């Protein structure tokens, strides 16, 4: 049973085709890492999965609900806003640039969506938020404002904020790319903990080490296509494709 299915996704920005027929099936509890050079379309693909970008062609199904599929003419047609909102509720998203709300305290950042969107009970929402902060190791920063925190701490808050809606899938768009190297570890650790709890995760990343250690499946994308995919060890240690080998040698050399 797939929790998320994307089939033959095509997307153009103006006249540039950035996704040229990408398909992905995600099973419950699976951790998938998407790697590839800049401009390969990996972030765009992830953003299409929860409609931060709209697709031109293809089909996306989330937990049995159809978010978008082709009409008879082969053009993508989205479901009603209401249905899409329901599907997206179950998908958490973590951005490269954290995107915390700077005018709200950490606790308010976490409680906002549960209160506004889920109409949660305030006491309950606070309790959940504090438990999540505890989980990401920031229980002492509930009343801090984002600017007072390091990048790594901000990203951990962002992860906790996404978890506050109790998602079934977590999407990460280069979650450590904006961080100083010494701060990536604490974020990756939180993500590892999530993986241990069998959270379903799709992670766009440059962290090959993390992909190898945590992901069950690795997808290598280049120029809008999936070049190679398979078990993490196979793709990362023993790639079949020349392009994958080239990319990996460059990335690993740079370390």
């Amino acid at each position, binding site marked *: 049973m797939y929790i998320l299915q994307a089939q033959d996704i095509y997307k153009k920005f103006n006249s540039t085709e950035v996704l040229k027929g990408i398909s992905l099936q995600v099973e419950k509890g699976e951790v998938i890492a998407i790697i590839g050079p800049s401009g390969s379309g990996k972030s765009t693909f992830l953003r299409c999965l*929860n409609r*931060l970008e709209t697709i031109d062609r293809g089909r996306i199904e989330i937990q049995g609900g159809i978010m978008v599929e082709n009409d008879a003419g082969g053009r993508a047609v989205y479901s009603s806003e209401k249905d899409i*909102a329901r599907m*997206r*509720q179950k*998908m*958490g*998203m973590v*951005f490269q*640039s*954290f*995107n*915390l*709300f*700077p*005018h*709200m305290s950490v606790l308010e950042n976490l409680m*906002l*969506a549960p209160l*506004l*969107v889920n109409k949660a009970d305030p006491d309950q929402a606070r309790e959940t938020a504090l438990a999540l902060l505890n989980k990401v190791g920031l229980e002492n920063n509930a009343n801090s*404002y*984002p*600017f007072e925190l390091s990048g790594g701490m901000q990203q951990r808050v962002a992860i906790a*904020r*996404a978890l506050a*809606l109790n998602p079934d899938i977590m999407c990460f768009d280069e979650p450590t790319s904006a961080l100083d190297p010494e701060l990536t570890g604490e974020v990756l650790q939180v993500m590892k903990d999530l993986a241990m709890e069998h959270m379903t995760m799709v992670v766009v990343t440059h962290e090959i080490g993390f992909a190898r250690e945590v992901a069950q499946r690795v997808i290598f994308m280049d120029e809008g296509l999936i070049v190679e995919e398979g078990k993490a060890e196979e793709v990362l240690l023993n790639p079949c494709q020349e392009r994958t080998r080239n990319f990996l040698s460059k990335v690993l050399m740079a370390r």
Partner: protein
Amino acid sequence: MEYIITLMPSMLKGWTVTLQLFFIVLIFALPLGVVMGIARLSHFKPLAWFMELYVWLFRGTPLLLQLLFWYFGLMVIGLRVERETAVYLAFVLNYAAYLAEIFRSGIQSIEKGQYEAADVLGLSQRQTMTKIILPQVFKRVIPPVGNEVINLVKDTALVYVIAISELSRAARIHAVRDDTLIPFAIAALFYLLMTAVVQQFFKWLESRLDYYR
């Protein structure tokens, strides 16, 4: 000194007219400016275009002319409006145009990521605007709005052209009658007092919102 004291009753009376004008214009122009700023960014193109035209018209002509238009211009086509009505129409519509531009640019200065984060958390467009975007916009626009408010203090002097006895007109009447510049100096002090208060208020507002960046 004695002469200054004899000036006070009419100067103070003029000052209350100025103050009343100032506050009433602000009360209407500020919210109108917010709404117009949002409207200029509307996805409904005719509305956005209308707002652009509006801003061009009201920012592109002298407030003095607009004042004359609302009073004498309407009279010419047979619409008699009260002098106060004409003044409020002119000032509110003019200041709303300037403020709309400030709020529009403020809204556009908020990073795209803020909208995206609100979007993936399931907030509606209205919730995104009221809970996420506008609170941050208000902090960012404090300095330019402060400028406009200080301008408004001084622009109130323009209403003398339709013979409303505000502060500067009261001063002029005395100056002409008594052949002295002292009333103008007194009027200047009144304006400086008002702008000092406005300046301090905005300074306080900025410090109040200094708890985040």
